[in-house]
């Protein structure tokens, strides 16, 4: 029981990181019907931006709370800019092309970011400075939770709440929902779809960057290819929950993180990467639109 609870705590921490990345996928997919394969690499850039920002605020020495928040904000801000640049440079010219073309472009952008990363940051892993000292505390008897895990969970929950607030309560959020419902009708109603799409990319990329920083905090080894696997898995998480659906992405991310940690804990770490996909296939076969997705009527 105690071990199970410990695994659950670790699973939820991982899951919230998957959820943060999955949110970016799901929002972009909801609006453009595009699987933005470069999203995982934006997460990588976020971790590296934080790495350099941490140096600015005084790492590897001790960093104040404001410094740590600043690191997070700088990473999120620079990735938001990156997201906008990717959208304007690579995806916008393809708005009217077949969807597959856009998908290949996304793969191209992903390759580009990875290899630019190798040139700019170097191919070797870098060690992310400890901007928050780690400390363990006991939750229930024997179940240990680290300070990093609490920060991961707190920051991701905060960001998700903020996102829900933006999407549900603000004008731009309303515009986002309108565009994702029907792009053409939305533009006839006077919504600038281009601006809404750009904004979506900015938010999604900022969330991915936050995930990157949070991962770097607890797993301090960062390298230019670190985004590939989490990127794919976060996408799977988004599909699992029902793509285009924001609560679905959070749920999918959590399920994914918990399932993965459980498999590593109880079965074998070599099956870690397979469980995510096995889970996905089973769920999609039972409910083809994902857990929280709604079915679409077939046009005849």
């Amino acid at each position, binding site marked *: 029981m105690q071990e199970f609870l410990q695994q659950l705590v670790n699973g939820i921490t991982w899951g919230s990181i998957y959820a943060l990345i999955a949110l970016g996928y799901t929002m972009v997919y909801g609006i453009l019907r595009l699987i933005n394969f470069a999203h995982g690499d934006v997460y990588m850039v976020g971790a590296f931006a934080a790495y350099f920002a941490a140096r600015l605020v005084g790492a590897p020495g001790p960093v104040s709370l404001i410094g740590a928040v600043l690191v997070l904000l700088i990473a999120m801000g620079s990735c938001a800019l990156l997201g906008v640049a990717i959208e304007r440079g690579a995806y916008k010219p393809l708005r009217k*092309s077949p969807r597959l073309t856009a998908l290949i472009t996304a793969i*191209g*952008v992903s*390759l580009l970011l*990875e290899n630019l990363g190798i040139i700019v940051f170097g191919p070797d892993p870098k060690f992310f400075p400890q901007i928050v000292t780690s400390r363990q505390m006991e939750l229930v008897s024997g179940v240990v939770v680290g300070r990093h895990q609490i920060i991961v969970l707190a920051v991701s929950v905060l960001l998700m709440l903020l996102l829900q607030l933006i999407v549900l309560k603000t004008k731009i959020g309303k515009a986002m929902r309108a565009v994702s419902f029907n792009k053409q009708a939305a533009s006839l109603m006077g919504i600038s779809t281009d601006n809404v799409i750009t904004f979506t990319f900015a938010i999604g990329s900022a969330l991915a960057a936050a995930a990157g920083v949070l991962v770097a905090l607890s797993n301090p080894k960062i390298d230019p290819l670190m985004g590939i696997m989490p990127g794919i898995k976060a996408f799977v998480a988004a599909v699992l929950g029902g793509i285009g659906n924001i609560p679905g992405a959070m749920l999918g991310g959590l399920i994914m993180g918990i399932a993965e940690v459980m498999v590593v804990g109880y079965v074998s770490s070599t099956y870690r990467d397979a469980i995510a*996909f096995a889970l996905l*296939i089973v769920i*999609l076969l039972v409910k083809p639109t994902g857990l929280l997705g709604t079915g679409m009527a077939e*046009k005849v």
Partner: protein
Amino acid sequence: MRGLLLVLVVTIVLVLLNFLLPALINPYLFQILILCGINVILAVSLNLVNGFTGQFSIGHAGFMAIGGYTSAALTYYLGPHVLGKAASIGLSPAIVGTSFFVLSVVVGGLASAVAGFLVGLPSLRLRGDYLAIVTLGFGEIIRVIILNVNAVGGARGFADIPRYTNLFWVSFFAFVTILVVRNITTSTHGRAFISVREDEIAAEALGINTTHYKVLAFAIGAFFAGVAGGLFGHYLMYLHTNSFTFMKSFEVVIMVVLGGMGSITGSVIAAGFLTILPEALRPVKEFRMVIYASLLIFLMIARPQGLLGMRELSLQTFRSLPFRPGKKRTEGAQSG
């Protein structure tokens, strides 16, 4: 008669090239040539699924892995016995070895086809991106399972596979792949594949068994991917699951899309182009992949429908091939 003669001439030329080329060009160039051929098989077979039937699959590397590992295991474990038996009754080991290799590649292809059939089944319920992600998942699951099978080396990789693949067999199988896919897609019967792509519901309404064709496309595509895997393993003499990640699947999808969905010649050209390009960029060292990726993005923006779109490059010589669709005698002559 003319057709048979042509096949004979092509075969002789290929056999000659197979023996002469290694002496003429350096082993590096020769290897690129072999890899081009393997990629042609992969791209053309995936085009049947993605381009002609419109079922978006990005798990081709998984099928390639199944075929590669199955056929390599056959020649590695059974091969010595077969050769020993053959030697004891006085058969030439070269001929027996080669025939056993071809057989094992085909068996590998069949194993992949069975997997393709299983992966094709979800396509009855899922479409578009959901299907894509499920095929990607299947590909990864296959990879992880192979990674845990100790008999084929597990995480260490499968070494000491005998080298049987040569230019002749690669071009032979590439030729067969192109021929089969071409004959399927241009025959009256094969139009059903294209109708599934154009409008599944309308096709269903016209009485086409879309289920049958979708699963069939997956199985045939997987068969040839498995064959490509078999050739790949028997050329490099080593297999590792790292060669079959989703990046490999992406590579093949990129070839199909860049060449033009629904154009066989497009796939052939793109497969050659995208195999040679990264190698040609080697002199620029670390900027190689950056240029490759930028070029890919540029090509997609400049020509979204792919290099050839839906057209085929048709030379007059192509027309005089014996396997023209619509002629009855093409049916049985595929073994070429």
